[in-house]
């Protein structure tokens, strides 16, 4: 009897390809990413070698369609890969997520055929991407951004600056949102290559966590790009940004799930080994309950994230589901890492233990690509518009 056929409709199983990708990426992350993670973090050193290997495996531009040289994987497969990478390195996870979600994705969905042929094969082949929306004075209120773009006879000219740009020092392409008119309808999105004249990168930010990822300001000083680098129509930039963020939240949710998974594993392993009062602390109910709590919220986060991914290309509630996944997964991962660190006692306060890095890395998940507060506003807007 084929029992699967008796369960029509709801199916939580992964298909063979998805299982395979998950297995391969998990092995790669354990064998190739994990060993150098602690040193890279301590030295604030970008994971160049690891990324080169990931490029060879096709993980960096995995969402780029096959027609442009990418793997063209479905959103769930992508989410599984980001989760597995982030389990061993949140910094490598965000580097990969930003390249796929906020650089390649808007180009795939809004770029002209000519632009796609020019840029996507590079991104599929291992070039990194970045996304320039945030400015020093406009974070959550992205619609108020001030960077300007002017149309001239031989292309667009950009002036302004962007802040908190992941991959800033290493990306070959940036998707940049700039002002071409008044209000939210006066925003347009562009692809700016890192070698464009007038483009420059500031000094790296010193961050609490994700220390081996690259974050810096980027500057445009009469920065010139071809007409063909406009994404979508002039004035469509805010739509491009919002739809891109809807999609990218899946990547950050997956990153949070990966960190959360690791926090649970570390807590369970530590509790099995650590002896106090004559028994492994895993025998104490107080410890068992904390592990049960974070294992349960992990299952909840993972379901929300996979669910949002599996529906992201098909349904009108995709934006709400992505925000719910990002909100919940980030909040739950922060709580879980805190609990796991508590179980580690004083050792968890030492950088000798992996949980200390997770504690620093996880913090940003409730902040970037839309704070928890912005996610709640997005969700509420969907609910009040009529879809409970």
């Amino acid at each position, binding site marked *: 009897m084929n*029992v*699967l056929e*008796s*369960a*029509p*409709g*709801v*199916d*939580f*199983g*992964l*298909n063979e390809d*998805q299982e395979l990708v998950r297995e391969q990426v998990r092995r790669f992350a354990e064998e190739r990413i994990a060993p150098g993670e602690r040193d890279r973090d301590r030295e604030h050193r970008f994971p160049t070698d690891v990324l080169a290997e990931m490029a060879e495996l096709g993980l960096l531009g995995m969402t780029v369609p096959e027609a442009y040289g990418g793997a063209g994987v479905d959103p*769930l497969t992508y989410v599984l890969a980001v989760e597995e990478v982030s389990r061993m390195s949140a910094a490598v996870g965000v580097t990969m997520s930003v390249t796929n979600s906020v650089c390649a994705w808007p180009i795939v969905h809004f770029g002209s055929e000519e632009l796609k042929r020019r840029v996507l094969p590079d991104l599929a082949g291992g070039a990194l991407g970045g996304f320039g929306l945030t400015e020093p004075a406009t974070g959550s209120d992205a619609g108020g951004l001030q960077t300007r773009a002017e149309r001239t006879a031989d292309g667009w000219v950009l002036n302004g600056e962007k802040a908190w740009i992941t991959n800033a020092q290493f990306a070959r392409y940036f998707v940049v949102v700039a002002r071409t008119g008044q209000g939210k309808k006066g925003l347009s999105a562009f692809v700016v290559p890192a070698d464009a004249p007038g483009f420059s990168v500031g000094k790296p930010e010193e961050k609490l966590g994700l220390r081996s990822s690259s974050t810096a300001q980027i500057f445009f000083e009469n920065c010139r790009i071809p007409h063909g680098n406009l994404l979508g129509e002039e004035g469509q930039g805010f739509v491009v940004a919002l739809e891109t963020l809807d999609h990218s939240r899946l990547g950050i949710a997956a990153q949070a799930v990966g960190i959360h998974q690791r926090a*649970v*594993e570390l807590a*369970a392993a530590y*509790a*099995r080994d650590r002896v106090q009062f004559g028994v492994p602390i*895993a025998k104490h*109910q107080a410890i*068992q*309950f904390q*592990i*049960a*709590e974070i*294992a*349960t*919220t992990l*299952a*909840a*986060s993972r*379901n*929300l994230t*996979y*669910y949002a991914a*599996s*529906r992201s290309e098909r349904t009108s509630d995709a934006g*709400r*589901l992505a925000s*719910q996944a990002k*909100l*919940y997964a980030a909040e739950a991962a922060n709580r879980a890492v805190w609990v796991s660190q508590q179980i580690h006692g004083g050792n968890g306060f030492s950088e000798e233990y992996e949980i200390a890095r997770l504690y620093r890395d996880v913090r940003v998940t409730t902040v970037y690509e839309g704070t928890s*507060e912005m*996610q*709640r*506003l997005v*969700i*509420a807007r969907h*609910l*009040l518009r009529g879809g*409970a």
Partner: protein
Amino acid sequence: MHIELSDEQKLLKEMVRRFADEVVKPHAKEIDESGEFPREFFAQAGELGLAGVAVPEEWGGAAMDVVSYALVIEEVSRACASSGVILSVNNSLVCDPILAYGSPEQKRDFLTPLASGQKLGCFALTEPGAGSDAAALRTTARRDGDHYVLDGNKVFITNGTHADIAIVFASVDLEKRHRGITAFLVPCDTPGFSRGHHEVKLGVNASGTTELAFSGMRIPAAWRLGEDGEGFKIAMSTLDGGRIGIAAQAVGIAQAAFEEALSYTQAREQFGKPLAELQAIQFYLADMATELDAARLLTWKAAWAKQTGRKYSLEAAQAKLFASEMAQRVTTKALQVHGGYGYTREYNVERYFRDARITEIYEGTSEIQKLVIADWVINKA
């Protein structure tokens, strides 16, 4: 992965929602206050195939899958939590173990009337001195030729005031602790079987909760379910499935509370505008909707795992733990956004708030779920 209801499941959900809205909900407030057991509701549910949702047709059931079962319990509980648990107990705690462990004769004589809704079942495990520590039960079953003689007391038995058939757990040898526990199918009109009064409770007040007592109750050995000493395993595996039902009940209660919070905050004006335009209220609504989806997905995943023959104890415990605690938070917030009105019996949220509380307690407290989950994560991962 394809997390979407099939056409059949959607039709079932719509059918049950209509039944629940039109037939169940109109009495929910009244039976909550009177404590009157909705025997007529159970008969009607039985006619719709809801008494034995996942039981094969040859034994009187509707032959649907476990996700469908969760949908049924959610939709009925959305209208009336008492009615939801009445159905959940009959399906999960009574039909399921007879289907899994019963002989063909037992399925014919006991399961068929239960799954078709002609008879109502109850599950008698808990005793005054044996709650979470079920293995400490003191009810005895003494073998006497082709019969057993049962003596003892049970408490907090849902459906107990009106049940026609009880699954009774008793020990054939108290020295053996859990290895002596044995399950029996007992018609409630058997001489020596008696019921107490209906317990007046904080919530789910119409679910027929009562004590049962057995005094020299003589039953044929053919009514034993499974083997001597197999009862503890039967009870524990049955409760795994029951947890899916209670998780679904919690989701249904919370869904009702959320819907009323959503509509009330859009209608109610303060400070010159609807409450729903205030950020603090929007944040509540966003958190409620997110947690509700998370709980529903955990419930469906446990149901899917059970349906496809996977191990599902961990998933069921996580679904039950999360959904019940979610329901507590969501009903609390739903009441809160109703302000003083929410504290009155004029508004349903007051009932939802009371009804949600039991989901953290019965069919394994949150604490028992955490022990189950921790055991999996620490020792079996």
